[in-house]
């Protein structure tokens, strides 16, 4: 491992043979930070969601990850969440990634004024549910062919526009 101080306040951190596991981890993280720094801002939330899904797949791979009887998060469900991300419009708030006890990965939006919406892809069916303050509830299933159906798009645009 070679660490060279390059003025002003820059560090060059090169991958060398014989580096320890920890040093390789640090190098990978620094590379990731550099890569993200080069990306346009509009891409960054999608990219960070992809990373989050990858992390969820890794950290929720054991049965009982929720402390009870949760099933491991499946690759199929993680791929489903990635497909939804690709279909999301730009002018909405970025969602969060949430693993469910049945092993599915959902995307969720939650606002401070008790508006919560969640969506996941199971086979070719989008499963969605949302409570939008008090008794206003919307839920159901829609077929998915690569684009979000107008029902779901309408909900996202109405309740979770980009801040």
């Amino acid at each position: 491992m070679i660490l060279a101080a390059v003025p002003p306040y820059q560090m060059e951190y090169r991958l060398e043979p014989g580096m320890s596991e920890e040093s390789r981890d640090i190098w990978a993280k620094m590379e990731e930070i550099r890569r993200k720094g080069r990306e346009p801002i509009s891409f960054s939330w999608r990219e960070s969601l992809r990373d989050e899904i990858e992390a969820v797949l890794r950290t929720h791979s054991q049965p009982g990850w929720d402390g009870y009887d949760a099933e491991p998060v499946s690759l199929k469900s993680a791929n489903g969440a990635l497909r939804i991300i690709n279909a999301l419009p730009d002018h909405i708030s970025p969602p969060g990634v949430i693993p469910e006890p049945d092993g599915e990965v959902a995307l969720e939006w939650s606002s401070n004024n008790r508006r919560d919406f969640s969506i996941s892809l199971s086979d070719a069916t989008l499963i969605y549910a949302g409570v939008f303050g008090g008794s206003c509830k919307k839920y159901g299933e829609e077929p998915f062919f690569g684009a979000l159906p107008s029902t779901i798009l309408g909900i996202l645009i109405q309740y979770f526009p980009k801040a």
Partner: protein
Amino acid sequence: MRYLRRFSEFLFSTFLRLDWVSRAVAPDERTSRYIFDKKQFDEAKRIVKYAAFMPSKKTGDISVYRTAHCREWRVWGLGEYFVARRRPDKVLLLARGDVAARAFVQQGLSVVAKPEPHPRHAAAANWPSDKAEQRIKAIAVAQEALLLVKPLAPKGNTV
């Protein structure tokens, strides 16, 4: 020293077990759902995520504890000794979501006493099989829940 600690833990869990609650769950009763996964709550927003209230595919219900009139140390003790330490993977108790039994009942669910492994154990049952319906009910319950993050134990305190 280790044996002494184990013995004191054994005494404490036995003490926790000496408890009594009525068989019927009252609508106003507080229930606590113990949370072991950081994705199931948001400490900054002070909210419990709906996934913490989604039913298990295996049991078809969710496990809760009836914690009305319990002091904080007892509520955390129940989660620690009767949920976390009963698992072989030694999961870490992170938080809990407190919600009145009424919140489940209002969604057409029922809260029934299941006094094993502890007299205060109960299950929120009667979930629909449809996934979207399960999720809408879990979201509604989560919106009523109060998040409590487990305080860091002082050095030497095992609970």
